């Protein structure tokens, strides 16, 4: 019986291939990923959905690296306390990274896993790529 995959089901599926979404350096060295839709995903997922995911990620990373009053304040405070303040509290960047991890997990559960895809958090790949694992599309339990 054909059924949509859940995140757990994916663990039993075999990896068909991996797609790597590379970094987009046109805005400088800030962390931004290309929103170009990879050809291998054409049959699997809606282009709009994919671009929305990547765009949200880009926005989150931009927020982490944003220069503004908040980051300057944090920087100055850290300098004054000889950076010991980070023993007690997290940097803004780290907080955003946690948010990103949660967002990716949520996206995987709701959207990507049912389509047999899995997003890997870019931080696990050194912020170089967004790795999308494509699983073989076969129904579970028919082994």
């Amino acid at each position: 019986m054909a059924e949509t995959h859940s995140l757990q089901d994916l663990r039993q599926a075999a990896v068909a291939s991996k797609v790597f979404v590379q970094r987009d350096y046109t805005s400088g060295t800030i962390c931004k990923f290309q929103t170009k839709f990879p050809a291998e995903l054409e049959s699997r997922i809606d282009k709009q959905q994919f671009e929305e995911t990547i765009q949200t990620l880009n926005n989150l990373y931009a927020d982490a690296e944003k220069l503004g009053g908040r980051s300057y304040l944090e920087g100055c405070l850290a300098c004054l306390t000889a950076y010991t303040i980070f023993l007690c509290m997290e940097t803004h960047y780290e907080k955003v990274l946690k948010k990103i991890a949660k967002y990716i997990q949520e996206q995987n559960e709701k959207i990507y896993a049912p389509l047999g895809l899995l997003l890997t958090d870019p931080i696990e790949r050194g912020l170089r790529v967004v790795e999308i694992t494509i699983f073989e599309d076969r129904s579970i339990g028919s082994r």
Partner: protein
Amino acid sequence: MHLGVEEPIRECQYNQICTHNSSPMGTPHTKKKKIKRKWQVFQGRNKFYCNGRIMMAKQTGVFYLTMVLILVTSGLFFAFDCPFLASNLTPAIPAIGGVLFIFVMGMLLRASFSDPGVLPRATPEEAADIERQIDTTNGPSGPGYRPPPRTREVLINGQTVKLKYCFTCKIFRPPRASHCSLCDNCVERFDHHCPWVGNCVGRRNYRFFYLFILSLSFLTIFIFAFVITHISIFLDGCTVLEVVVCFFSVWSIVGLSGFHTYLISSNQTTNEDIKGSWSSKRGKGNYNPYSYGNFITNFCAALCGPLPPSLIDRRGFVQPDTPQPAAQTNGTGACPSNQVQSHMCAQDQCIQSTKFVLQAATNPLLHSQTVILGGGTPLQAKTSLGGPCSTLGPSQPSLPSSIPGLSCGGELMALRDSEIHCHHHLHHQHFISPEETPSPPAALPCATHLGHHVHPAQLFDPASQDSLHEDSVRGLVKLSSV
């Protein structure tokens, strides 16, 4: 989520994943093997201390010299000059001196011990993917054909920037990143390798380095001034030593601080300045695309901007290379079983063999290795295949590219050219690393994984295993090239 009929099997399959590492049916390898932290399998030439908390370059001799110079000079100052100065002038002098000294030491240690912004090396799949992309762009290359240097051009704020491919790390370096040949790492926003600090200076520790040299200039001038004051009133042996040290330090350190102040205000790295990347001498329209326009913003961005976390996660644990997300679990119970284990290991094996196919596709040099697998039932043998599989992590050295000798040769030519342009700055010998030293083509892949392939496990002898291996790889290469 669970359907009635399939529930028991599914539950075992879920459970099997949970108990993979701790099950009594575990492979001999997994049983004996301790879980390592990532710093222990780190591929660069760094040294780690305090269980991965501290990260330094390999050569730290000059760093200890720096420490000794600062500690001895300051120590002599506080011991011999301060009592005199405190009583004759003001006690604020030792107080300010003390604060400066603590700040200097803090910044030095922070600059020396932190991760400068090392970029982790590409996983084998990533490397293969990039190779494929390069081959499609450049066209097929036969033996004896030297492929063009691997570069990508990108337009940043109106300037064309060339991204170079790093043969060691198997990545296209981000803009402003460079490969440090001493530490054998690609470092983000690479400034230079500082032997005095015993580490590279890059994106994550540049501000500490700058604050170190700035505060050290103040401390040196401070000590110098008050020691001269002291000498003019009362001559002492120790004081003379301090004067000598301070005199030579002042010129070099203050000069260096001035230079880095200029670099920060124009948002350049030492690397870029030495090469003249954004100099107007290169061309009329040549400008720095990273500068924010005014020196105040550049300063604030460099010193008070957000500090990115380390990308190498050195204290994390090495995970077996599987596609499932690390922390996904739905609290399933324990139900280990033989069948279930082999199923998981078969999946593991499948994943690993996909990886090996990709690796094999990029490496025509096949090393033959003997793999003696535990004999007996295919089930057990498959299980033992899973063991060595689990030893493979992202830490494995990536295989050399398909025509390593020739492409490395091309890179070496570029190396020599850029070396000519490098020179020592002021009195300090900062190692401005030229473009990366390509890793030798003979970088040996880990011996254990080469014996694997998708055939059912048996006892192998080298000859038949080798030919089987080659056949399967050829077949799989054909498949993968489709």
